[in-house]
Every structure is written in C-alpha cells, then in structure tokens.
C-alpha cells in the first residue's frame, strides 16, 4: 500500500473535508483543504516526485521542512518544500530534478 488519508467518517477527530484539485506535471490530483502539497501527493499514492543528482527518486523524508528532499515548483516559484506549503485549489505543481551540480528547471531538462 501507499500512504493514505484516514477516511473522514472513520476519523476520531471529527474533521470536515473541503475538496481541492491541483495538477502535478499536468496530471490532476484531488486533495482536501488544509493538506500540504506533500500530503496531497502522498495520499494520492505518490511516494516520490523529485530526483536527486544521481537521478534517484526522492519524496518526503523529514516531514518538517529540514531535509529539502520534497522540493517542487509551485506555479513559477521554484524550490518550495512540499511538506511545508499548504495546497491551494488550482495550484500548478511541477516536479524538479537535480542534474550534475545545478538545479535545472523541468522544461530545461526534457531532452
């Protein structure tokens, strides 16, 4: 299994769900208001979305903004920590990869 959100009717804290939708590299993903971008990605079954210098996949590691493994671009803002940023309805997310020593934008690196 992959990470999942506790179903709202089984959640002991009695929360509500206000749906939102973001796109990640063009693919629509459904989440709920209040989730971080990392939370939306994880709950949608995506464990990794960035690639390190060697091309190896990375996702959430520290979960609190320390390790920078979870970086994404939000609109035209690069290097946003997905575990810290709340998702907003309509956010356009692009994943990032590091090649060599530089940070390449997703468009630059498509061969």
């Amino acid at each position, binding site marked *: 299994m992959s990470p999942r959100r506790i179903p709202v009717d089984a959640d002991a804290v009695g929360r509500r769900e206000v749906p939102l939708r973001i796109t990640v590299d063009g693919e629509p993903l459904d989440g709920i208001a209040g989730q971080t971008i990392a939370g939306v990605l994880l709950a949608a079954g995506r464990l990794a979305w960035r690639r390190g210098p060697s091309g190896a996949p990375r996702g959430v590691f520290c979960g609190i903004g320390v390790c920078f493994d979870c970086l994404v671009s939000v609109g035209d803002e690069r290097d946003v920590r997905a575990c*810290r940023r709340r998702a907003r309805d309509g956010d356009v997310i692009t994943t990032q990869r590091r090649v060599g020593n530089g940070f390449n934008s997703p468009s630059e690196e498509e061969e």
Partner: protein
Amino acid sequence: MTLCRVHVAVVGAGPAGLAAAEAALRAGARVTLVDSAENPGGQYHRMLPDAYAAARPDQLQHGWRAFDRRRRRVLAHPRCTWCPETVVWALEHRFPEGELDSPGDPGPPRSSQAPRVHLLSGPPDGGARVRHVLDPDALVLAVGAHDRVLPFPGWELPGVFTAGAAQALAKGERVAVGDRVVVAGTGPFLLPVAVSLLEAGAGVLEVLEANTPATLARGWSRRAWELAALTGKAGELRAYVVDLARHRVPYRCGRAVVGARGEGRVEEVVSARLRADWSVVPGSERSTAVDALCVSHGFSPQLELPLAAGCALRDAASGRPADGERASAVDQFVVVDDDQRTTAPGVFAAGEITGIAGAPAARVEGTLAGWIAAGGDPAAPALRSVRRARDQGRAFARRLARAHPIGPAWPGWLSPGTVICRCEGTDYGALRRAVASPAGAAARVTKLATRAGLGPCQGRICGPTVAELTARLGNGPTVERPVAGLPPATPHHRPLAHPIRLGELAAPPQPPPQPDHPSHVPPTPTKETER
C-alpha cells in the same frame, strides 16, 4: 504606554516558546511571538489545519486542554503580537564590535542588547513574503529540534521516513504512511510514533529499539523512573506501552534496521541483533517485507539561530564547552545559566535546543526564560517550583541520553556505496577517500572534496554524521586549522537560517508587525472550566 515596556521577541511557539510568551506577558512585557507554522504548538502540540475544522482535536494528544487554554490566553493578549507563518532567517548584531558602549552614550548599555531579528512572513518558500525587522530588548530562542537519523544502506529510498515525519503526517494531516510499517531507532519517541500510526489505521509490524535491555536498564535506573514521574512523562510512556501491547505490536530491544531495499521505493528492511556497542551480531540478520519504514536515532537541536546570536555551546557527552574548534562536535546544545540566559547578551534559550527532555521540560524552561527576559524578579517565590521542575527536566535529559546512546560501532552498517549526504548523493567511499587525502580531515576540505553538506539542506541532515565519521576516520577529533578571517567551521554554522529569495532580500523591510488578533483565536470561552 506600550513604548516603555520591555519588548521580548520569542522565536518558536512550541511548548517552550508558548510558555515563554505567557510568562513574559505575565511579567508585564510586550511580546512578539514568531513561528514558521500557522498555529502554535510546535512538534508536540501539533495542531490540525484550520480548514479541517476538527470537532475533537483533543483526541490526538496528551494535555490538549491545558495547551489550548494557554494558546488562547497568549494569542488574545493585548500586549502580544502573534506572527504565524513567519520565519526568522537571520539574526544580526546591532552594533559591530568596537562601537559598543561608547562613553557618554545615553540609554541602556549597547553591549547588553539583543540582536536584530530578521523576519519573513508569508507562505513557506513563497516568492512574495514580507520582510520585517525587530529590535527587541530581549530575545528568547525556542526553535526546537529535528530527528537525527544515522545512515544505512537504502535509507534514501522513498517510503523511508523519519519517525517525526510519520508523526507529523498522522497528527497534522491524518495521513497514515503504510500498512506494513517498521518503526526503528532509539529513544522513547519511537513509542508515541508507533501509537499515532496505529491510531491513524496504519499497520505496525514491530518497534525496534537499538539499545540492549542492559543499556536501557542502566540508563533508566529506578530513580530515573521517579524522575520521569516528576517530569510528567511516566504516565504518558506507560499509556503508549499499553497501547502497543493491546495491538500486539512487539517492542524489541537490541535490534536495529541496518538496511533497506526496494525498486524505487522501500519494499524490504533488513534488521539485525546488536551488541551494546551497536555492532551487528553475525548471523542475526532477517528481512521483513514493509511498505514504509520510520527511523529516528534521537534529535538534533536547531542551532543556526543560537550560533548566529553568538551563544556558546556545550558538548552533550562531556558537558564541556564546545568552542567550535572541534569539527567533530556532534551532540551540542546551547549553554544556559540558572536563569536560562545564554552567553550572548539579551539572548535566552529554552526547550530542545538546551537539551532533549520532552515537552514538559521545554515548558518549564520557557516559563523561566520568558519571565527573566521580561525583567521579572529572579527571586520571585513562584519561580522556586519552576526552577525545581527545570532541574528535574535536566536530570531527565541526562538519563534519557544515557539510556538511549548511539553506539560507537554503528558505522559497521555502512558499505562504500551507502549514501551519507542525501542532497549531494555523497557516499561513504567518497568520504573515506577525502579523509585519507593528505589535505587532511578538516571539515571545509571534506566538504569541498565530497560536496557533503553543500546541498539544499546545508548539512542539517548529514552534518552530525559527516562530522562524526570524519573524526573517526581521521583517528580522533579533528582540529580545524584556523582560516584567516573565517570563524571556525562547525556543522551548524549557517549564516542564513532559512533560504530567502533574492527579490525578497532586495525589498525594503516593512514596519514591525503590531498586535492584531486574528478572528480564529477567540478569547478563552468562560464556560471552559479549569481542570
């Protein structure tokens, strides 16, 4: 009359910072409370997002009601300015050396002044955050800690989380990380993490404590358990153990995860029995199919702001001052005196940055720090019990460290290809080659040769590990050769505590924030009765 009041800035609104703010307000100060999160609470009282509109937030944590009352009292206080989603990215000495205390200068001595605090407000890593600058009379640093994780082959695979990440996802977002989860490492923190995972509907296969029963027993002597009772931790820990037993989750001591495997994500972990020094007992390895692994080998205090303020550190193990010349310094904490004063003028420290002892200890340190920072009477009778609790907290921290040490033989888990620095992908082999080079093992040389610590996290994750391995490989603590014009390198020295975008840096700072009381923090309802 607000202008005449002492202005205390508190950085961090976890258990320590919130208590500091409350005590400073009680002592009559004007308080600016800053946290990078949207809500106070820190790691322990992590709040659910407002948008979840949770009807029963108390379900997730111990002591919620007391926390909730304190939060409302502080945030609604007319002398408190609450700055949520605000990060302190730098501290700056207001007067360069030499300009201090010029004769005939009226006003308070400049040398006693707290540093200038640089703030950025707005969504994390956003491009259009607003800059502010504070010039407080006193500064309380209560910025907490993050998980320390030792490397092992495969720890960089997706699906391997720090225990804190799993905790944050379960408590803060209601996301469970997996169905077949192993929780491993060392320390009592593994217990609440496993319990939170179970509460969130995840499956926990086992909890592995790397230290042997003998080490645990020696550390947690009977007296220590009494200490735990005094610091309010015993009941909480016992409840976690009962919960694990109810779910039939085994808690095994003397066993650790020494490897993780999988194609593109973690699929299997290899655990092994450990001796007291954390060397692997040959033939004791076994593999377990998992869909997530949560690891924690203790906590690293977030020291960039204390270092920027010029606070002296101490070595956790020896208790001796760490003057920054020992590049191997690993477990360092901020030195504080009996009043939680650091060695930097006007700067106080509380919570995990002074030692790891849990939320109750952080709270009493905060109370003391906030009161004294605000100019409260150090001899006030009410402080007597606070000081006693603080001393118990310190004793608890020592026991905790003794019961859950990191065994010196852990590098035996590493192979030459094991990733050490996650950001740069530096492996153990590269680090060994760099240390063996004639240029020596100085931290700067190792960094430049291997790029370890130069990636986006700036060594926050690998720093202590690289420092420790470098010291070992170089045969003992490496003394950094002084470089003219540069302060000695330490694993925590980062002039910018937080990334800032160039556009934000170029924008002029806005006037300091003023008290305003967001509608989502109503004053304490009178109906809510005290416990």
